[in-house]
């Protein structure tokens, strides 16, 4: 196809309609923002690169160009801090790419006889479609901006506990006595919590995001999510004010969207990261010197522990227990210690399946952990 510049732009805008419909159906502002980003990048490429580079563009080039645009879109999404779940973002991109191909090779030539000889121009239909798409995208972005979560910047030390009962973003500051989240769509960013029973206590809500939250000196749990869907990224939990502290606890959240704990550093707690009856991905965390277990996936949880470093755990490094189903891969467990109770299930076991649990275990590195990798009490441990 030899596109004219106008043909490229009209074809691209027209083919964005399915992705836009999906974005609207998702009812998430990030989806609108992502479609706008894809369109903006595509139009810039059309104007500055493709039109100059391709006097004729063969059909097969859609594959490499699609891959390039995907990479650029992802990079721009990260740079602009568009917080889209990766799987849905990929799905949306896939819809946009596929509809682009179907429109260009089937729908446009079917509906407009002169499509190919017209260089991809859509005539009056093209102009109307372009205006409609631009209106919806700009309108959507405007609505996203107008209804965006209010952002509260904390300065200095604030006496808590703070109770959040509306969608909002809390940025910065030091909160004494903990934060309680009681609303959906809440984001905490760069917040430090000192003291209290729970550092951040999230109950019966979802779409909560904790980004670079630091918790020190709590007496029960660093971050507690009960019946909640949370994304916890790059948190830090240390200096517990008691011997029963769990770093991150996600429990009874099976009916909520999947949670994720990634990139956190947790030190000196009783348990590092624990899940109960929840679907959680535990990825790329560093858990150090726990006194009970490093990472626990328990009580019929379904989840994955991937790429974590667990060091100096007393008793057990990573455990899948109580009828849970777990994928445990690419973790490093070093220096798991015998806890001195003669109980073989706590004999410095690096990775353990316990009580009817099913664990798929592969590509882990185990160092200086006398208990090795083991299954107890009717559990299945599949090693590859």
């Amino acid at each position: 196809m030899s596109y004219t510049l106008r043909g490229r732009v009209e074809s691209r805008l027209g083919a964005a309609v399915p992705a836009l419909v999906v974005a609207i159906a998702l009812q998430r502002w990030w989806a609108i923002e992502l479609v706008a980003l894809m369109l903006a990048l595509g139009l810039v490429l059309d104007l500055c690169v493709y039109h100059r580079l391709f006097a004729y563009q063969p059909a097969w080039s859609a594959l490499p160009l699609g891959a390039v645009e995907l990479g650029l879109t992802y990079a721009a999404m990260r740079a602009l801090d568009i917080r889209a779940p990766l799987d849905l973002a990929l799905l949306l991109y896939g819809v946009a790419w596929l509809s682009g191909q179907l429109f260009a090779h089937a729908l446009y030539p079917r509906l407009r006889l002169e499509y190919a000889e017209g260089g991809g121009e859509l005539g009056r239909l093209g102009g109307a479609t372009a205006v409609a798409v631009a209106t919806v995208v700009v309108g959507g972005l405007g609505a996203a901006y107008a209804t965006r979560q209010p952002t509260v910047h904390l300065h200095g030390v604030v006496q808590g506990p703070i109770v959040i009962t509306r969608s909002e973003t809390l940025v910065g500051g030091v909160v004494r006595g903990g934060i309680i989240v009681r609303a959906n769509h809440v984001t905490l960013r760069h917040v430090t919590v000192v003291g209290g029973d729970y550092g951040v206590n999230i109950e019966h809500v979802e779409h909560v995001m904790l980004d670079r939250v630091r918790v020190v000196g709590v007496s029960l749990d660093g971050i507690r999510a009960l019946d909640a869907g949370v994304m916890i990224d790059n948190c830090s939990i240390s200096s517990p004010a008691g011997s029963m502290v769990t770093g991150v606890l996600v429990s009874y959240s099976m009916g909520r969207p999947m949670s994720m704990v990634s990139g956190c550093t947790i030190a000196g707690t009783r348990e590092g990261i624990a899940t109960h009856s929840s679907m959680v991905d535990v990825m790329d965390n560093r858990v150090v010197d726990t006194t009970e277990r490093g990472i626990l996936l328990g009580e019929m949880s379904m989840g994955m522990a991937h790429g974590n470093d667990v060091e100096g755990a007393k008793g057990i490094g990573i455990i899948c227990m109580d009828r849970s189903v777990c994928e445990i891969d690419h973790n490093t467990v070093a220096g798991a210690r015998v806890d001195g109770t003669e109980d073989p299930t706590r004999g410095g076991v690096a990775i353990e399946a316990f009580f009817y649990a099913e664990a798929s275990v592969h590509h882990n590195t185990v160092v200086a952990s006398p208990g090795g990798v083991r299954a107890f009490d009717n559990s299945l441990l599949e090693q590859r």
Partner: protein
Amino acid sequence: MAERCAIVGSGLAALAAYATLRHGGIEPGGIAVFGTHADPTEVWRTRAASIRQRRMRSESEGHVAAPAWPGLALRERRLTPVWETLTNRYHPPVDLFLRHADAVRARSGWEQSFRQRRVERITAVDDGFELDGEGPFAHVLVATGHPGLAFPERLVGDPRAVHAYEPHGYAATVAIVGAGMAAATEWLNALAAGAEVVSIRRREPVRRPLNVPRPLLSKRGLAPFHAASPERRASLLRELSTPSYPSGPEWDEPVAAAEREGRFRVEASLNGAEQVICATGFRRGYLEDALLARLAADHGLETHDRWIVLAPDSTVPALTDGRRTLSLAGAAAQWAFPAADTIAGAKYAAHAFLRRICRTR
């Protein structure tokens, strides 16, 4: 419905135009087709059979139905042609192309519009055009095809000579004159028949996948072509009319093998071959077509070199206005579309013709 449109000609370009008009909502009763062959594929079919052509040079969308999609690759109901289409390597089988053309003709109502008659004269009148006194028709598209086979003068009357597009067999030694698609096809045919082949040509063939570079098939490449001066445009058309055929091992390997065996060689002039096949294409220029020559002379149409000067939409400017349209399609329309003698060219003229009819309906 009164006949407001007429198509003069009954070949593939006429069928493509007819299918386009029907797709545009014009009933068979509103179109008259004047031609010498009731079957619009007949002439082309005979020529393709003569050179034993098995694959089209065009690609998946090179068919006579109005919408480009679905193309012929999808109609094969196999994945390989679809994949080959994505990589520009698909060329539809000739029999599939012809079967599809037959189907388009059957469902279009062609028979209802067809009148078996050669039009000798087109006369402009106030509200359209009379065709040998019949009419007037407000909109006329002339798609009379190539004006005839080109035969080298020195071979006229030579009993050894036959044109590639006429039915023929192969002697033991065959001289093939020409260097285009038909010549290349004939080299392979004659070699496959066990003949010794001498290629008679004045220049090395151009290797090109399609008749013209791809950008010239769309507005992007056509815009500078249409903006060029008449001299530049004519020069480009002459350049594009030099013989060419696609590159690829399917063309080169049999010839290379025969060269090694001493069964294929190139010479500049004829020798004593038993048979001479003239793969020299068609006569060129509007003056070779009696109808077009008369049309230009009667109405004092602007011409340049061997072309009637056309507007970018393939219409004759002096005879086209808000009430009437005279369009050319096929080889005679190269002034508007350099690949006018292809299916893409036929459709280009037909689309513009339909647009004008819709505008004045």
